[in-house]
């Protein structure tokens, strides 16, 4: 009876753990093995020699690798704060005031970008930012004296701006909706009482609403950080990393090394494992300081 009781959680957990280990951990172990070998998939005649840590050395000395890591972190550092600020502003707009119907409608419609397949977002981006017949350039040329459309996707800086614009377009509504559900938890009495004390928006935000917004902020930080570090689909269809490597985020770079040219699986596996270390450390930190911090 007693052992049976001890084993109960085991029975509940085993299937999920086994399956997840099989599809998650087993490949990781294999990746670690490959990362220590000379493994050029496209040249099967070259033997898969054990090369110690030379693939890792290659990665560490590879400026393109660090460039794409830096680019990804920069993308995160620009997109995330903007999504949070704009999301909060939209949440306040939707919360109360006149225009009840409009607000209700907008609240429902904000779900659309969330559900949008990122591959399709990238394709739409290619259409509306097209230099010759894109609607963005049409608006721009009709408003300014410059009659030549901007080459959004052909200029390194502008291409980066374009992927940021689409990222922010797709995920600001997500932030807005989560903030909004945080705000609905603010007790009406507390807020009314506070309005007698102050009319300042900032004071209200800091002293009354902030405690209810913090969990929402945590949710946005955790989920968006994870997904931005994984970003691939939208950029793949929009610019596939170009022009040059100006929009080549880390995942695009790793797939290019491992699945194009020489198909250098050894080096790409080393890159991927370094990336895994980075994301694990980041998610540990996030979860410890943001998620657990609330509960403990």
């Amino acid at each position, binding site marked *: 009876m007693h052992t049976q009781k001890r084993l109960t959680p085991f029975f509940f957990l085993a299937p999920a753990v086994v399956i997840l280990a099989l599809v998650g951990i087993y490949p990781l172990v294999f990746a670690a093995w490959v990362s220590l070998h000379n493994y050029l998939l496209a040249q099967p005649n070259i033997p898969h020699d054990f090369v110690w840590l030379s693939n890792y050395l290659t990665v560490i000395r590879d400026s393109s690798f660090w460039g794409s890591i830096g680019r990804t972190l920069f993308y995160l550092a620009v997109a995330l704060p903007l999504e949070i600020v704009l999301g909060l502003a939209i949440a306040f707009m939707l919360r109360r005031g006149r225009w009840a119907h409009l607000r209700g409608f907008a609240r429902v419609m904000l779900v659309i*970008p969330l*559900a949008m397949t990122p591959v*399709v977002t990238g394709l739409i981006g290619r259409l509306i930012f097209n230099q010759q017949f894109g609607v963005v350039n049409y608006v721009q040329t009709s408003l300014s004296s410059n009659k030549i459309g901007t080459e959004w996707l052909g200029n390194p800086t502008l291409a980066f701006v374009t992927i940021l614009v689409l990222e922010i377009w797709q995920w600001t509504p997500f932030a807005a909706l989560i903030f909004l559900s945080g705000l609905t938890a603010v007790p009406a009495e507390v807020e009314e009482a506070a309005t007698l004390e102050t009319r300042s928006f900032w004071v209200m935000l800091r002293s009354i609403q902030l405690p209810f917004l913090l969990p929402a902020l945590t949710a946005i930080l955790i989920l968006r950080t994870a997904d931005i570090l994984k970003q691939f689909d939208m950029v793949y269809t929009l610019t596939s990393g170009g022009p040059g490597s100006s929009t080549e985020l880390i995942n695009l770079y790793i797939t290019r090394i491992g699945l194009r040219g020489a198909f250098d699986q050894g080096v790409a596996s080393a890159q991927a494992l370094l990336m895994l270390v980075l994301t*694990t450390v*980041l998610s540990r930190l996030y979860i410890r300081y943001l998620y657990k911090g609330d509960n403990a």
Partner: protein
Amino acid sequence: MTTQQNSAAAIRSADQLAVLRARRGSTVKTALHGVGLIVVLFGTLFPFLWMVLTSFKTGAQITATPPLVFFEGTLDHYRTILGDQYNVGQSLITSLIVSVSATALAVLLGTPAAYALARFEFKRKDDLWFWFISNRFMSPVVIILPVYLLASQLKLIGNPGLLIAMYLTFSIPVVVWICTDQFRSIPRELDEAAMVDGASPAFIFLRIALPLALPGVVVSSILSFIFSWNELLFALFLTRGSGVTAPVKATSFLSGYDVPWGEIMATGTLIVLPVIIFSLLVSRHLVQGLTMGAIK
């Protein structure tokens, strides 16, 4: 007394003035609020609507400048992509099968695990929970290379079962994450009462806990369905020919000497529309789910 009356009158008139000012201010504010809402609504919907609109334009209408908003529509692109040459219908069916299977399996495997994590005490429980969640942070790039090598040796490339298994790497964590919190919120007394009556843990889980945790199960299913439906990277390398999923199909149009914008946008519309309709129907759950993903 009189000074008091005087000051009271002064306060009253100051109040009235403030109200008047506030009222005038508030009409401006209300107007701005309305404009803001319309801008947000337009910005949110525009890319989506532009895609749908473009999918009904002929080739010449698509590249026309200025871009056309009113035009005589055509269904040609839909006819083309659903025909034998592109067979987008087939890909949509594949996507549906894969997404539904992955979601069902994730619920089947994930809910017992979540229940165990919420209800039982055992060593290293927190680490196990973190391990589940960390899979949500892991980039598919980390495992796509080894999975590809292993699957190709086992001749599994192109097998939808493989793709379903890989989708479990993110759908099980979503289910575990959300449902653990959901199970925790059910009062323990219910379980304990049943246990006194001699019910087995399996019975308690299936008959008592699971029905009460249904909202969590629903939201996690919705999320894992949407994530699976939208996924590109795994599908890009693990599916082939007529077995590709819809997002992979969408990327295959950008190949030729002329870009078939109409066909691309029609395909995009067919991929996105079902999820959007579905998401609008369950929008309340969707937002709730995304919030619960990170906050208790």
